């Protein structure tokens, strides 16, 4: 079964105030979408790899998000952990899953999901 890219429109960017994040559920996956103060839009897995903290509720600055529960830090543009404790955990395997995301001409968020072909057929 091969995977294909599927573009999904999530809704208007204006739903996410600059400097904050919100969660979406897409094709059964929870995704946190961040809208940075400089206008960037990034999407990563919704839950922190540490203890499932809701990353969308974290503090954002530049492309860094700080998890609201125990302050692990991640770069939302790459998914890489950026604080010492986060990068240390799990032998360095606690990278966040990232999703390709862009804003279209109507200022709507468009997320690219990798879906197995079967799912696409169903849709």
């Amino acid at each position, binding site marked *: 079964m091969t995977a294909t890219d599927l573009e999904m429109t999530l809704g208007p960017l204006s739903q996410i105030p600059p400097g904050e994040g919100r*969660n979406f559920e897409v094709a059964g996956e929870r995704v946190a979408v961040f809208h940075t103060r400089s206008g960037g839009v990034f999407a990563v897995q919704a839950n922190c790899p540490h203890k499932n903290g809701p990353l969308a509720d974290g503090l954002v*600055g530049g492309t860094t998000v700080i998890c609201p529960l125990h302050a692990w830090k991640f770069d939302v543009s790459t998914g890489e952990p950026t604080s010492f404790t986060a990068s240390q955990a799990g032998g360095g395997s606690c990278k966040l899953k990232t999703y390709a995301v862009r804003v279209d001409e109507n200022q709507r968020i468009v997320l690219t999901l990798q879906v197995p072909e079967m799912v696409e057929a169903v849709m």
Partner: protein
Amino acid sequence: MSKKKKNLVVIGNGMAGARTVEEILARRGNDLFDITMFGDEPYGNYNRILLSNVLNGSQQEQEIFLNPIEWYRENNITLHVGVYAESILRKSRCVLGADGSIEPYDKLIIATGSRSYVPPVDGLTLPDGQYKPGVFVFRTLDDCREIAEYAKNTRGRAAIIGGGLLGLEAARGLQNYGLQVDVIHRSQHLMNQQLDPQAGAILKSTMEQMGIGVLLGKNTTAILGEDRVTGLRFADGSVLQCDMVVMAAGIKPNAEIGQRCGLRVQRAMIVDNQMRSLDDPDIYVVGECAQHRGHVYGLVAPLWEQAKVLADHITGANPTAAYHGSKVATKLKVMGVEMAAMGITEPVDERDEIVQFTEPRKGTYKKLIIRDGRLVGGILLGDISKAAYLMQAFDRNTPLPEDRLTLLFDIGAPSKKITIEEMPADMQVCNCNGVSKGVIMSCVKAGKRNPKAVMEATRAGLGCGSCKSIVTEIVEFACGGEVEEDPSVHYYVPGVPLAKPELIKACFEKDLKSVSAVFRELAGGKEDPASKPGLASLLNTIWAGEYEKEPDARFINERVHANIQKDGTFSVVPQMAGGVTNPAELRRIADVAEKYNVPMVKLTGGQRIDLLGVKKDDLPKIWKDLGIPSGHAYGKSYRTCKSCVGSEFCRFGVGDSTTLAIKIEHKFKGIDTPHKVKMATAGCPRNCSEAMVKDIGAVAVEGGKWEIYVGGAAGAHVRKGDILCVVDSHEEVLKYSARFMQYYRENAKYLERTYGFVERLGIEKIRAVVVDDSDGIAARLDAAIEASIAAYRDPWQEAYTAARPTEFASLLPVIQ
């Protein structure tokens, strides 16, 4: 022109392996070698000696890492993390990893350490060969986790086999999980490697006082239980019932990998003075898996010495470097008992003289063994104030002073300065990381002129931390009193390079009223997320109503006005001024709890009711239904004012504490402060509401007066407040509390509680400003806090008007 680099492979990235590589890097190893490491454990390198702290809960797992994964990346080291090196092919000069990897080497370092020695007893395993559930060893982080997990679910009784350092540490750790713990030891006294029978006996009674059972002279022959541990049987036929057992009976070097490829092995792999295997000049061995002149060391200090010699030799930095063995002297803290031990524990030669002091009731014991005027053995228990001096004399074999009494006690202690000055350069200061005074001195010479920078560069003080104060003293000494302060220590927040007064000044001058404006104007546009809440708090303090709110600058709690819980739900604490409520209010709270299926309703330590486990989406509805203002239990702000019944009902009451508490709550609710401010009022000095240990407390005393206490604390830090002043009325309590609060708001660092603030400035200074108006700012302080009070809006009222429509949605709908 550059010659091709050689391949260096290291097996094992524990304490010795990683340290050796660090030493090699420090000798320009990256120019000489392409370095590859195999590490069986799925982590970077951590400080194994701190595992006991992790087990007993005094340190978090994350705190003990020494070399994080990115350290390997940054230093161009290929780390096969979580990969066991299976064999060494000496003919084809490569190492085979269990994951199928093949790494060719020109030079190889074996640093496989050791594993726990498990004595052969019956009933250790199940028929499938696995350890019986409840049987554990204590060597790795994973062991530590498994022990903790089992202990949590077991309660009951635990037995530790082995009464050495490791066993006692494990015992202390397990006691913290509420288990009854017994230590089983084969020998006739505890820690027989380091202590003599007398010291062992003192330690035993100390342990027993702490509630730990000690069984001596017991040989375990079997572990009882069908499918999990239920007890132990001993050689004398007796039985001990227990639910888990931890093996801490010694270590066994991981030497098989050397044996299989034909290296000579006795207890461990045998090395020469350059730490090379006797059988292959390209294979080095270091750490607990190495045997040098018959010795296998089980402590870290000798490993550091070995690592240095190895690095000197392999890089050619010093081809004549040689290791001549280590004299083992240890300083330990076992179960809170400080001890130091070095050399022999009993006289062995007729020249040996003993100097001894015992005070068993206090748990103090000191014994020195002296031969020809030099120290050959020593035990210090309870009081180890002379340990540094004695360990040095032992290590360097220096002649001892004639007055033996001064060896055991400080008689007319010399001043500190002289001690540091007299300390020889090669004296080891940090025993965890093997850093000497000389290294610290040269680090300062090289330009690191403050303790923090020196500690980061040399790693001194970053092991168990007990030597931090000496390191600081040496840095101060080396700087000749001109310690350069690390400027960032004084920044109000890490992301903006200004101390609080300068930051306030800049905000006024440039008219900066929002957090984003501060980053733009004062931090070169670089947003530091960790600095945002502190800045928001400060701007709100200095601009009161004019502050431009940016919710993204606030921690989630202050964005949604509730406290985030471990599962992402929130807790809601309605205001309950002074802890006083009424049936109607209680009924509404009860209705809300039922309507929204609130999982737990609990009284808080702050005298109000907490609704825990509320879904984010329900928050606005709950506030609306409650119709009670926010209690601000989530904020870095004024929190709550507890009260006692006071003169209205209490037969001892001399002041009306409930009415005062209600007035306080209404005045200060929601005021932003550098950290939490908790208050209380007590109707008499019996202090039932604990007002003397609050940030601000008012205690009624005879004659209609109120004592105002500030800087009290009874959380992680306990401190009795200092009396700010004694006043005559509720109004005066409010006035001085408000003025103190504003002074604190303007002058404390972010996240500095009043207990730190009052101690830093001193109560005299604070009293002078707040009560006697020494700086002439009282009127301004009063006006400033009144402005903040006037700008207050109840966030719950504001929030359910939903100015930000998606604020409380835990999930946004996908709108195609």
